[in-house]
C-alpha cells in the first residue's frame, strides 16, 4: 500500500521526483523501523512523510486526496494493529478480520466525507479571510468535540465503574507480561 501511494506521488512529481523518491525511501524505512521496534512514533513519522509528499504532485486537483488519505489511514491502522498484536501468542480467528473490516469501512466513509469536502472546496476556490477563519473554526471545533468526547468517556469510566468491568487506560500497544 505504501508503494502504491508513493508511486502515485512519484509518477506526478516531475522535477521533484528525486525528492519524492527520497521521501518514499525514508517513509518505507521509518515504517519498517516502527514495525520491527514496535514504535508507533516511527509509524506516524512515515505517515507524516507520505502525507507531506502529496504536496509534491503537480496535479493540484483535490479529488485524489481523499483516497490517498484513506490509504494513509489504513497503513497507520494496520501498522498499529501489527504492533499491538506483537506480544500476543495466540490470536483468535476473527480478531484481525473484524478490526480490519471496521477500519476499511471507516476509511471508505471518511474518504467519501473528504471527497465531499474536496468538492465543496473546488466549487468555491476563492480564498478569503472569512473562509479561512470559518475553516479553521470548523477544524478546531471538530477537534475539540473529539477531545471532549474522549475526556468525558475516560472520566465517566473512572468514576462509576460496574463491578468486575475493566477500567480504562491510555491506549497502549505493549502487552502485559503477567508473571508475578
Amino acid at each position, binding site marked *: 500500500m505504501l508503494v502504491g501511494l508513493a508511486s502515485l506521488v512519484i509518477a506526478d512529481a516531475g522535477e521533484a521526483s528525486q525528492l519524492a523518491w527520497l521521501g518514499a525511501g525514508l517513509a518505507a524505512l521509518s515504517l519498517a523501523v516502527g514495525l520491527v521496534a514496535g514504535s508507533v512514533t516511527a509509524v506516524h513519522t512515515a505517515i507524516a512523510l507520505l*502525507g507531506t509528499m502529496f504536496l509534491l504532485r503537480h496535479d493540484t486537483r483535490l479529488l485524489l486526496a481523499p483516497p490517498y488519505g484513506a490509504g494513509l489511514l489504513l497503513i497507520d*491502522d494496520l501498522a498499529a494493529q501489527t504492533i499491538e*498484536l506483537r506480544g500476543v501468542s495466540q490470536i483468535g480467528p476473527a480478531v484481525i478480520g473484524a478490526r480490519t473490516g471496521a477500519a476499511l469501512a471507516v476509511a471508505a466513509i471518511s474518504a467519501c466525507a473528504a471527497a465531499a469536502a474536496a468538492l465543496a472546496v473546488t466549487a468555491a476556490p476563492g480564498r478569503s479571510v472569512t473562509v479561512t477563519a470559518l475553516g479553521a473554526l470548523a477544524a478546531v471545533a471538530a477537534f475539540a468535540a473529539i*477531545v471532549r468526547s474522549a475526556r468525558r*468517556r475516560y472520566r465517566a469510566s473512572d468514576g462509576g465503574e460496574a463491578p*468486575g*468491568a475493566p477500567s480504562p487506560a491510555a491506549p497502549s500497544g505493549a502487552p502485559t507480561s503477567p508473571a*508475578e
Partner: protein
Amino acid sequence: MLALAAAGLIAALASGRPELALLSLPFLVFAGAGLILAQEPHLAAEVELDRTRLLEGETVVATVWVRNDGQDRVEVELAPVRSRYLTLEPAGVVAVDLPAGAEARVAFAAHPRRWGAHAVGPLVVHARDPLGVTTWEGRLGRRLHLRAFPREQRLRELVAPVRTRPFLGTHVARARGEGIEFADIRPFQVGDRVRQINWRATARRGAPQVNERHPEHSSDVVLLLDTFEEARDQAGGTLDAAVRAAAGLARAHLARRDRVGLVDFGGTLHWLEPAIGTTQLYRIIDALLASDIAFSYAWRNVDSIPLRVLPPGALVLAISPLLDERSTALVTDLRSRGCDLTVIEVSPLDHIAPGPSAADAVAYELWRLQREALRARLQSLGIGVAVWGRDGTLGPALEGVNAFRRSAQHAVRV
C-alpha cells in the same frame, strides 16, 4: 492518530494547501468514530482448573472463559497471572474477538516446573473497541491455587535408628524381648514360655535353653531440612531435590509406623512435632510445599529448635547441600549433644560448573576438596553422610550410611 490529524489541519491552515486538510480528514473521522462507537465493555471472566492437586511434572488444564455482556463487539487480550514456577502454554497474551453476548473459552496447559503451591489468576484483560481507538484494562476472575506435590523416590532401605520406641514398628530393636528376629540363646528361667524353648540347644546342652529375640519397634525420626542456601541451575536446585528426599523419607518412615517430625531450618524456622499416620504425612508435605530459601543473616543454632520437636533418642536426618556455615555448625552441635544424626548431602556439584579459565578450574577443584574435607570431618564425629547426586537414587546412598554406621569406625556415643 489525533496528533496526526491535528498536525495535518494546522499545516493546511499554515500553508494554505487544502490537500493536507483532506488528508487529515480520514484520521479525524476515524478517531471520532472510534470514540463514538466505543462503549465501556461489560466483561465477565473466570479461570477454572480441571484439578487443583497434581504431582510435579504433570500438567493441568486451566480453562479461561470470558463473556461479553455488553452491546458492542470488543477485542479482548487476556493473560492469566501466574506464579513464578508455573509455565502456561500458550505463553503470553491470547487475543479473542467477542461479539455482543458471545463467550470464548481458551485452554491453557499449566505445567508446574517444580513442587510447591502455585497460583493461576486473576486474568489481566485488555479490551479494545472495534476500531482499536480506546483500550480498557483490568483484572477479572479469581486467584486459584494449585498444589504440585513432589515426586518421591521409592525407598526400600532406610537409615536404621540406634534407639527405638517401645511401640510396635518395623525396626529391629537392640533390646531383647518378644519379636521375630533371633538374638541369642540363654538358659531357661522361671516364667519363660514353652514355645520359646530351643529344643536342639536343649538336647545339646542337657538343660532347657530358650531363644531370645529382638522386638520390632518404631522410632522417632526428625527430618531437618536446610533452607539456608541452595545451588540452582536451569534444570532445578538442591532445595527441589531436598524436598523430594524429605517427602520420600517421611512417607517411608511413616509407613514403618515411625513418628516423623519436620524442622525447616533456614532463614525462617518452621517445625512439625513428630507424629504418626497419614494425616502427619499430609501435614509434612504441606509444610514442605511452603519451604523456600529465605535469605537471612540470623545465626541460628540448635537452641532455636523447640525441645519437643527433637525427642531424646530420635534419629535426625539432616537434608542439606552443606553450603552454609550455619547448617554445618548445627549438625556438629547436634552430634556433640549426642543426637543420632545422619546427613543426606544433596550434592551442589551437579548444579555448579567450573568457570572457563584455568584459575576457575583450580578454584572449583579446591572447593570440591574442601567439601570432601568437611565430609570427612563430619564422619570423624560419627555422622553418617550420604551423598546424593542429581542422577543417583537415594536408596544406595542410605545403604552406604547404614554400612558406615555399622562399621567399626563408627562409635555411636548415644
